[in-house]
């Protein structure tokens, strides 16, 4: 269950990063420069988490 949630979160964060970068391409002041970077870092953490739970599920 947690693994699915983390995978969903990963994809939501990736799509959000794309949307924010698109908005910044229109008008750079709409979002700060750091926002897409922070989202990518959290997405990477969600990806690692889902990998961890995948291994955990396969062991049990």
């Amino acid at each position: 269950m947690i693994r699915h949630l983390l995978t969903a979160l990963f994809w939501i964060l990736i799509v959000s990063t794309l949307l924010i970068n698109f908005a910044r391409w229109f008008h750079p002041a709409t979002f700060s420069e750091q926002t897409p970077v922070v989202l990518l870092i959290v997405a990477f953490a969600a990806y690692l988490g889902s990998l961890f739970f995948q291994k955990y599920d396969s062991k049990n």
Partner: protein
Amino acid sequence: MNAWSRALLTLLGASILVATIFCIPLFYRGSRSLGAIENIHGIPFPKTDEGTVVTEKLAHADIFLAEPVLAKNVRLAITFNPGNSTKLSVGIRENDFWLSYPKVELYEATSNAQPVTQTKIISIPLTDKLQDKDRSIDLMFFAENSASSAAVDEGIHDQTSWQLVSLEAEVLPTLPTKPEFKDYVKSILKKERPL
């Protein structure tokens, strides 16, 4: 759940997240830092113990915001000595034209009155103002004196002399009017940038 529903749900979740991230700064408030007071060529005016001595008709400063200009007001607390100015105004840049500053009057000389140091607090709506990519907005002071001509830059013939003792900028959330909101949306769609 098939692949299309998953993709749509992901897009919906991402849109909600992006909207939330955009909306949180709308409630930000507080004082914001200011750049140096400089002339239109970017050369800073000299600073003394009593403040900055402005010797040209136009004096510019950046206000560094931490949020988009949407639904924001800036409250400026300006302490100044008008010196030889007959009129002093301030404005925030509105569009990509370099001199698009709607002026708000700070001071107008009356006959016989001696120039004294005074403080004025003014509030300017920001929603329809031009924001640079570093999120700064442009502030400009306009001074007029009895010897000034219509030229924007009078060079060495400029006799302007007034003193900016202190300048503070505070950002406050506010509800934008319909034309201001239209201007904001238009500036995003037109990808408006300072020239």
